[in-house]
């Protein structure tokens, strides 16, 4: 489609807006290299004076921070890979396999999708405790393994693949699982990547679930640990360079993912939206 060319006024406006959106992040990065007095006195300055990496040193010297990173990595990777796998299995079954109860199963999943997450905090805590998963990786990971929206995305994608490809594989002698694994899954790469990004971002940034599923500090994830850091229970002063350094480090993985798959995220807007 032909688009109207933008005027210089539009450009100026856009640049101003872009500054508004980017500037806070620049400030965050710069401040993490400042000393605390400098950060307090000159919050706007873009040149740390003096420049220091003490915030980062402090974090890397802190055993806790490594625990947080480790936990975030463990949880995010387990959740992401398993979720992509389980959602695609279910999506395939709902899209293609014929069995009694399929419609009811799908209706249930859609209904579940409509339940707002925050409402589930107490219920999830109750069941996790009841099952003896409280304060374990299992309690942190398993409830996040499945998301109805992911099942929905995969189902829609599988339905867009011509069925004759699978029929051809059936005639060629492939079993149902083989068709799923060797034929359908490779063809679903775009949807899998979308789901991967959503799951990674979602579980890396997740906070509420980890608050209610564990309490030991050895199970703190980055989000939970940094949130506690923000509440200032770890010391005196405002410690903004330290907090912002932690936030910056925490943002790096999703930022990398974002820039690597930028084009896909920008184009696959419809299915890739998450509140």
């Amino acid at each position, binding site marked *: 489609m032909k688009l109207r060319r933008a005027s210089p006024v539009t450009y100026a406006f856009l640049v101003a807006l872009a500054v508004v959106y980017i500037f806070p992040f620049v400030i965050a990065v710069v401040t993490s290299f400042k000393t605390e007095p400098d950060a307090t006195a000159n*919050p706007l300055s873009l040149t740390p004076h003096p420049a220091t990496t003490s915030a980062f040193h402090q974090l890397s010297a802190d055993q806790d921070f490594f625990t947080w990173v480790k936990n975030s990595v463990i949880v995010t990777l387990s959740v992401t890979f398993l979720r992509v796998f*389980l959602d695609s299995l279910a999506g395939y079954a709902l899209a293609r396999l014929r069995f009694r109860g399929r419609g009811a199963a799908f209706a249930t999943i859609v209904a579940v999708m409509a339940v707002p997450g*925050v409402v589930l905090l*107490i219920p999830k805590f109750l069941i996790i405790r009841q099952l003896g998963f409280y304060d374990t990786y299992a309690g942190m990971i398993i409830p996040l393994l499945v998301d109805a929206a992911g099942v929905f995305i995969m189902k829609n994608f599988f339905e867009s693949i011509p069925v004759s490809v699978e029929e051809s594989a059936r005639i060629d002698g492939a079993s149902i699982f083989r068709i799923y694994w060797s034929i359908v899954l490779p063809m679903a790469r775009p949807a899998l990547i979308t789901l991967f990004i959503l799951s990674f971002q979602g579980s890396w940034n997740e906070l509420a679930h980890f608050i209610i599923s564990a309490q030991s500090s050895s199970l703190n994830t980055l989000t939970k640990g940094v949130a506690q850091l923000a509440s200032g229970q770890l010391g005196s002063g405002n410690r903004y360079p330290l907090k912002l350094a932690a936030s910056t480090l925490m943002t790096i993985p999703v930022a990398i993912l974002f820039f690597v798959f930028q084009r896909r995220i920008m184009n696959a807007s419809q299915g890739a939206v998450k509140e």
Partner: protein
Amino acid sequence: MARGAEAVRRRFREPGIRGHEAGAGWLFLLPVIVILGLFLVVPIAMAAWVSFSDWNGNGSPLGAHAHWVGLANYRDLLTTPGLDQNNFGTALRNNFYYVLLVVPIQTAVSLGLAVLVNKRLKFVGFFRTAFYFPSVTSSVAITILFLFLFSPTGVINKLLSYAGATGPSWLYDPRGLFHVILGQLGVNQSGGSLANGFFLGVSYWDWLAGPSIAMCVFIIMAVFTTSGTFMLLFLAGLQNIDDSVNEAAALDGATEWRKFRHVTVPMIRPTIFTVVTLGLIGTWQIFDQIYVGTKGSPSNTTLTPAFLSFDTSFNNNNWGVGAAIAFILFGIIVFFTVVTRLVTRNADRVPRRRRFVPTRPISDQNASRVEPGGAA
């Protein structure tokens, strides 16, 4: 005979031409069904029970520690004057103003951004990325960033001081925005007779406070973080508009604003409703930012039902009330979702009268797409 054979085959579960498809289907669905059932359906039932009980967090809520108390928890929140009712009423008021401001502003901002980056631009990718980036970062990181930006000696107040203004202490300022404005206009801050009437434990005067200055920080933050996501939704909607419609309007001499108002907006009406609905659902659930940022302070003016539900249960061990808050919040979200649905349905019919009628003929295909709701 063939029918008989079919029946026998069914009975003995011998695979037909589709092999063991039914078995495989359930097997493929099993993990999802089990996990959704175990961590969604069952716990909702458990929480429903807890909301009718006096469970205090000791032992299992299914054991001897929990007793049936009927609607007592709901009454404490809705009808019995007391701390629970006052907190809940305050949280509802806070969140209500949050929703009231965030939803329209984020919808307008994201639509504006989408229209801007839908033009033929150099560096269009850069601009889209810049606007979308806040959406991918975690709520924790963004909240910390905003705590810094809006700290009393922070970036925002520094900027304001350059402009000769003295900024408020933001997250430490419990004054309601409307009260502040009324105060500027010389209205008595005691609230007069409005201070004597109460609804949900909160005086009428306090209901009219508006969002506190502290809450305004969260409102700005919400717009900042979500506008990118919704911009992408709008962008997809805008790209579905056939450009010949815009050209036809331009040839008719329509100004940019008129084109936007009478061509663009009606054509992306379905997307607007999607964004408003998602916005309503999301804003009623605000939790992370409060947890990281203020924990409800100052003076409970950033308390939200989601945070209150958490705090009441996990910190005050009043699980019955906490669970009851969660269910009422669920009801509120369902209510707003349904209302938006109904409004959408009616709005789809109403604007037909006002729909864009070009004076120059455009092709049938385009004409039909002008109809609002056609792309829904």
